[in-house]
């Protein structure tokens, strides 16, 4: 078995795949700026959401800022693609995007409509249940898309990594929700609705991607 590995064998593309600290700092700043602008816009729009124009503005703001975040998050991938390091988006990811993005779009539309209708008509009984559950249904489709991705991933390393990231996110969500739940019970922190579990899971997943969750550490 040859022991010495010549340093020239360190793949050149692997080196140019690294985009530099400056790039990532700018990228992170851009993501934070868009998120801050979104929060500020919603702060301004929220009081006007009793009426239909306000609802439409809220919906437009969500779409514009989400589009901005998705666009910016794709830039590192696009740069790698231009440098010939990344190929075309692989089929499982393409299918994931085609499932996940329409589901989120449906969620935004149904949530805004449900909030508006509930305020206008103040439904009760079965209709209230239908209105309340409507925004959750597209989120169930989004969750389905998330868990179909590793099932359909045909690359075993990528599948292994995805499951590790999901496991980390699930552990993180359980930890945060457990601690927050007890703090909430003793009225030490503001009350949080249960639906925050999904955004917390997504946040933990983003965090997990920053860690080397490899099989051999």
């Amino acid at each position, binding site marked *: 078995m040859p022991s010495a590995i010549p340093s020239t064998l360190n*793949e050149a*593309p692997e080196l140019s795949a690294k985009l530099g600290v400056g790039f990532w700092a700018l990228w992170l700043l851009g993501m934070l700026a868009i998120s801050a602008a979104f929060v500020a816009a919603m702060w301004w729009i929220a009081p006007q959401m009793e009426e239909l124009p306000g609802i439409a503005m809220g919906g437009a703001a969500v779409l514009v800022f989400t589009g901005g975040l998705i666009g910016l998050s794709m830039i590192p991938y696009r740069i790698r693609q231009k440098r010939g*390091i990344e190929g075309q988006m692989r089929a499982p990811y393409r299918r994931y995007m085609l499932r996940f993005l329409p589901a989120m779009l449906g969620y935004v539309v149904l949530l805004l409509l449900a909030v508006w209708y509930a305020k206008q008509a103040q439904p009760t009984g079965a209709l209230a249940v239908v209105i309340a559950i409507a925004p959750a249904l597209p989120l169930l489709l989004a969750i389905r898309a998330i868990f179909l991705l590793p099932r359909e991933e045909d690359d075993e390393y990528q599948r292994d990594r995805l499951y590790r990231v999901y496991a980390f996110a699930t552990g993180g969500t359980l930890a945060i929700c457990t601690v927050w739940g007890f703090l909430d019970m003793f009225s030490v922190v503001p009350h949080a609705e249960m639906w925050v579990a999904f955004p917390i899971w997504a946040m933990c997943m983003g965090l997990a991607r920053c860690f080397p969750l490899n099989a051999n550490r």
Partner: protein
Amino acid sequence: MKNDLRVLRAQQGWSQGDLADALGVSRQSVNALETGKYDPSLPLAFRIARLFGKRVDEIFDDELGGFSKAAE
């Protein structure tokens, strides 16, 4: 697990992308295998061995040396 994948690949004059295509995996997988961040499944290990015309234990070393040494 240690492996000689990088050396074997270089002997063929292949890039990580070439090896990835030959094995039907992603380039990131080849990189993770070469840097020892990921151990392949048994089927993938056999595909790799077959591609280079070697035995699995000639490419991968579990650093225990038990099985292949005992078999010799």
